[in-house]
């Protein structure tokens, strides 16, 4: 077994930037807040919550008002004659931007030259433009601020497309600035020319091809305004390089108003009234909370509604952490890999109040059987989301905070009492019966169960002041199921686009935005390799992120589908040439360690979290490990494979709906085959090998249980 630990010396000089000494210390290293020690944990958590809420609400109000996030016209640049490039940097300073992510190049060189003079803006040099955009995205999700990216034309610009699409699908505010060839040669297939405005049109909230340097300052204000208000999203500004050298007298607007862009914030009073009526009548109400609650900072309002009316809550992937996991009403993840109890709650509910959630197919499963007994109240700031998938009885277009606030106010005014005691008890009973995982459940006693690693990690993190990001795949779903979160913006994951390669750069961005937080990226060995070059970005900028690599030597999620639905035909999902991640991390100057045995988990996690610099922990798990419970694609969400049923002795079962315990309660899920040749075990000297005939845990299953293929 390999066990190499290395703590890198203090962060090295920043590659590509001569201004190491200008970097804020808090960006360079993980700084613990010492004041925390004297407060009780509860008081500290409440203080963190209140402070962040106040700051975020103030920023939101400013965004909506159309005023710049920074000093606006009150900078030393105001009224001066600047080049376009200088005006770009001046505009960013006027917006109070202190960090940008990017990568220079021929058509961005003037912008980078102007950046060289800025004392206010710190540039994080990525190793790939996609990494830069995901870093800005992680920064934006962790802080609520607008993430800013600068790239060059051609390939620099096209490399941002996945990042922009990721931000678009998850409604993350970004401003992406791309250099473009000079106006005179646009359209001639000039060197490093790409029509990035055209290429990104379907995945931006708005975009600009700058036509004159006089429009520059206004364009930047518009871009920040559009990105950060309404339903947030990425905005692209493409700047031909001749404009970067053109001169302009710089004036930054202190307010902006775009007649053709007027998001609706306040909900219609009549619809709010109708919503309250439905809530009053409901016997089995359920809140479905999505990412919109996080972006509108409506977490407290949603919690208040849930508590006042005793409404259980399910969360989408982006809605995770919108409500504290410690709140008993929070039933957690719903959908394809949601809990059986959350999915049962959706199926049995008579009223679903969806707030900032868009009924993704990963949440609804088979639409015709989705929430068959429920009426719907759908609250969203984007009118196009309402009626797109589900036709609600009460549609309310508006800001989640304003609308749920108004609902709460009306409920208080009417003095309404909750009617849902029996329903809440029912949901809690389901939760007792079908937990995600139990301590005595062990798929492979001698091997590491990913669920256990994530539970342990979760227990070691401060749920209020740490950030967990994920890549995409099995580990993402395990993280969604097992990481305990108390504050919004502490769980960051690519939901809509499902971008492998997102989580690691996002963690770097999150750490830069929230240097006081421990930031852990939960990665898979497939995803990590999609942007592994960003290890250099982390070490080069002294960003002490931690990567917990759930390493099954395979593309686990697709592998799982192939096992369950494609007759174990493992087409192109088993890696034959993974690198030694520990050596690779060390080569980048990271600390690193590999574990493969359950008893190593605690010590290794402690070492990872205590490391001062960036650190990778490679956790070898069996390739055949499966994310359960699971709803097969196209099935109804109460048609669940592999939920643990404690009333049957804690075995995984496959059944639809809820048959009473003791009767024919479905079938036991298929035992997990282990293939020693392809799973991680073969790569670890000294690791216990488990042959296909020695499926651990099989003895614990009822002998009469059938082992169906395909989870039917």
């Amino acid at each position, binding site marked *: 077994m390999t066990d190499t630990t290395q703590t890198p010396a203090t962060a090295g000089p920043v590659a590509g930037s001569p201004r190491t000494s200008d970097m804020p210390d808090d960006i360079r290293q993980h700084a613990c807040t010492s004041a925390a020690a004297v407060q009780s944990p509860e008081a500290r958590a409440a203080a963190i919550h209140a402070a962040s809420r106040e700051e975020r609400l103030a920023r939101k109000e400013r965004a909506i008002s159309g005023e710049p996030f920074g000093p606006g016209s009150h900078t030393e640049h105001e009224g001066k004659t600047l080049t376009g490039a200088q005006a770009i940097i001046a505009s960013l300073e006027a917006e109070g931007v202190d960090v940008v992510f990017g990568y220079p190049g021929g058509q961005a060189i003037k912008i980078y030259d102007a950046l060289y003079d800025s004392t206010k803006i710190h540039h994080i040099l990525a190793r790939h433009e996609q990494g830069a955009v995901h870093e800005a995205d992680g920064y934006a999700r962790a802080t609520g601020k607008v993430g800013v990216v600068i790239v060059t034309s051609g390939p620099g610009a096209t490399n941002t497309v996945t990042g922009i699409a990721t931000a678009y699908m998850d409604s993350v505010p970004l401003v992406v600035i791309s250099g473009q060839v000079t106006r005179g040669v646009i359209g001639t297939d000039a060197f490093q020319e790409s029509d990035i*405005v*055209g290429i990104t*049109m*379907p995945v931006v*909230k*708005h975009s600009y*091809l700058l*036509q004159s340097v006089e429009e520059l300052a206004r364009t930047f204000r518009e871009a920040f305004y*559009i990105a950060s208000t309404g339903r947030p999203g990425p905005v692209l500004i493409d700047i031909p390089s001749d404009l970067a050298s053109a001169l302009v007298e710089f004036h930054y607007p202190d307010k902006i108003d*775009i*007649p*053709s*862009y007027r998001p609706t914030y306040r909900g219609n009073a009549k619809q709010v009234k109708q919503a309250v009526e439905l809530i009053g009548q409901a016997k089995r109400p359920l809140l479905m909370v999505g990412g919109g609650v996080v972006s509108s900072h409506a977490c407290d309002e949603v919690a208040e509604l849930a508590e006042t009316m005793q409404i259980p809550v399910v969360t989408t992937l982006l809605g995770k952490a919108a409500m504290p996991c410690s709140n008993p009403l929070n039933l957690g993840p719903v959908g394809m890999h949601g809990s059986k109890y959350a999915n049962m709650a959706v199926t049995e509910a008579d009223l679903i109040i969806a707030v900032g959630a868009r009924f993704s197919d990963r949440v609804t499963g088979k639409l015709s059987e989705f929430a068959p007994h429920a009426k719907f109240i759908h609250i969203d700031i*984007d*009118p*196009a989301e309402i*009626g*797109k998938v589900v036709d609600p009885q009460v549609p309310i277009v508006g800001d989640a905070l304003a609308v749920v606030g108004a609902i709460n106010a009306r409920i208080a005014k009417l003095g309404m009492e909750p009617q849902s005691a029996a329903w809440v008890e029912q949901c809690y009973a389901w939760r007792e019966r079908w937990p995600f995982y139990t301590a005595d459940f062990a798929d492979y006693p001698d091997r590491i169960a990913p669920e256990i690693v994530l539970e342990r990690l979760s227990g070691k993190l401060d749920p209020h002041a740490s950030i967990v990001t994920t890549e995409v795949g099995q580990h993402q779903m395990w993280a969604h199921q097992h990481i305990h979160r108390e504050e919004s913006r502490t769980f960051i994951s690519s939901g809509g686009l499902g971008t492998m390669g997102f989580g690691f750069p996002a963690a770097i961005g999150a750490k830069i935005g929230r240097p006081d937080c421990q930031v852990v990226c939960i990665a898979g060995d497939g995803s990590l390799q999609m942007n592994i070059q960003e290890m250099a970005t982390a070490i080069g900028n002294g960003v002490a992120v931690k990567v917990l690599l759930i390493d099954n030597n395979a593309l686990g999620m697709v592998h799982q589908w192939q096992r369950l639905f494609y007759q174990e035909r493992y087409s192109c999902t088993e890696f034959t040439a993974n690198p030694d991640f520990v050596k690779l991390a060390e080569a980048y100057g990271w600390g690193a360690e590999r574990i493969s045995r359950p008893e190593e988990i605690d010590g290794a996690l402690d070492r990872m979290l205590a490391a001062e610099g960036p650190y990778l922990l490679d956790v070898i798990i069996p390739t055949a490990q499966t994310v359960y419970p699971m709803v097969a694609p196209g099935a109804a969400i109460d048609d669940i494979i592999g939920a643990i049923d404690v009333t049957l002795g804690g075995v995984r079962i496959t059944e639809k709906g809820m048959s009473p315990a003791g009767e024919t309660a479905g079938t036991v899920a298929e035992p997990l085959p282990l293939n020693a040749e392809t799973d991680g075990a073969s790569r670890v000297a000294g690791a216990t090998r488990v042959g296909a005939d020695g499926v651990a845990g099989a003895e614990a299953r009822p002998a009469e249980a059938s082992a169906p293929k395909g989870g039917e």
Partner: protein
Amino acid sequence: MKYILSVLVENRPGVLSRVTGLISRRGFNIDSLTVAPTEDTTMSRMTIIVDADEVGYEQITKQLHKLVSVYKISDLTDTDAIERELVLFKVVAAPDRRHEIIEIANIFRANIVDVGKNSLTVEATGTQSKLDALEDLFRSYGIRQLTRTGKIAMSRGARDS
């Protein structure tokens, strides 16, 4: 069913592409589209005819509203809006049959805009059904070439859309 949308947009490069891209991306087909600047030259008006069901139509209008370049969308489908289209026909016309074609054109208040050795070019405006009827009549003479502009529409009276 066919919906007629009158869409007021920013008159800037790329806006047409944003609008059409959005409609096609969401899986709908544009039947016809006309666009030109309005009385205010910073704005253009598009008249778009799309074939969609009710849910699809609702999605299209909601998504179009989200475009920052779109100011206003009016649905002129079931209103008594004024609809017009312009057509140019190049009709086969041997010298001895010219007068018949000219007579037909006169009945339809169409204009002869070009005369060739064996053809006449006729310009006609009107509603779709009138132009369809004219096309039917000309077909028996032989139509060499036909160009239709696609519909433009405007609400009647004081309604501003």
